[in-house]
């Protein structure tokens, strides 16, 4: 009997643009055996640094943990932040569009300055 495995989707924000292969290679040592079992794939890039990762249900916690522990990719420092998990890609898409919108509405200088290590920042609403 074939059992259809259910999936979960995790929305991840990176501190800088990243490629799918680089990212999966970086997550592999953090996930260990779970990497093979979770059937990870990056299914959609909403932006260069905002993407949805799909995994088999039950492994999303491990995946979030792995994103927290991944601090570098190809010897370059990076941060990966898990923003939302969901069982449907639709709600991930909605949340991603909210994130993109919020970033667009923010003064450009604030967003750029952050990645350059500048001290400039604005208060949350």
């Amino acid at each position, binding site marked *: 009997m074939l059992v259809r495995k259910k999936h979960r989707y995790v929305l991840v*924000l990176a501190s800088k643009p990243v490629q799918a292969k680089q990212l999966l290679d970086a997550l592999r040592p953090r996930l260990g055996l779970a990497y093979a079992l979770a059937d990870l794939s990056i299914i959609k890039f909403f932006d260069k640094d905002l993407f949805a990762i799909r995994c088999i249900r039950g492994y999303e916690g491990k995946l*979030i943990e792995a994103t927290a522990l991944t601090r570098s990719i190809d010897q370059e420092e990076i941060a990966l932040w898990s923003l*939302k998990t969901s069982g449907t890609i639709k709600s991930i898409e909605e949340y991603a569009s909210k994130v993109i919108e919020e970033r667009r509405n923010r003064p450009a200088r604030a967003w750029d300055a*952050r990645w350059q*290590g500048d001290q400039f920042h*604005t208060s*949350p609403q």
Partner: protein
Amino acid sequence: MYVDIVENGVSLDLLHLLGFKKVLIIGKDVNIGTKQAKNLLVALDLMGDSQAAKLIKSPMCIGAVSEFSRPIGEQVFKALGEDRKVFAISARAFIANELRLKHASFAFARAKRAKAVPIIASFAKRDLELFSPMQLIRLAMLLGADMPEAKSMLRWLDASKEKA
């Protein structure tokens, strides 16, 4: 309401984007150190246990914070538990190596047993050291917390308001 504690200079709008509703700034909202100050979190790595326990009992102190460079003695947890003060766990510190993670999970269990209030925060010095609330919850679970406990470690300000 998820709360994080960060150093001055970390981007507040990034924290907002990650899902935090409240941010405490070190040096402004809380102080970390070894001397009496308003809203003091005693830096356990910079002093001995008996000295720290004395300082924790002062009314200006709200709790203690550790980066787990050494194991923490029982008298510290006893002092924290007496007034149900905060035991802050620095996520940035304990993911650094396995020994610190071991110290942190022992300390978390002892803080719970002593009836102190264990909390988790990034204590980030810069943006790249931040974590999202979901990640902090998972890191709290690495220490042995269950899901409701892990969430309450991030919502401790709500609980302290209710108590007041």
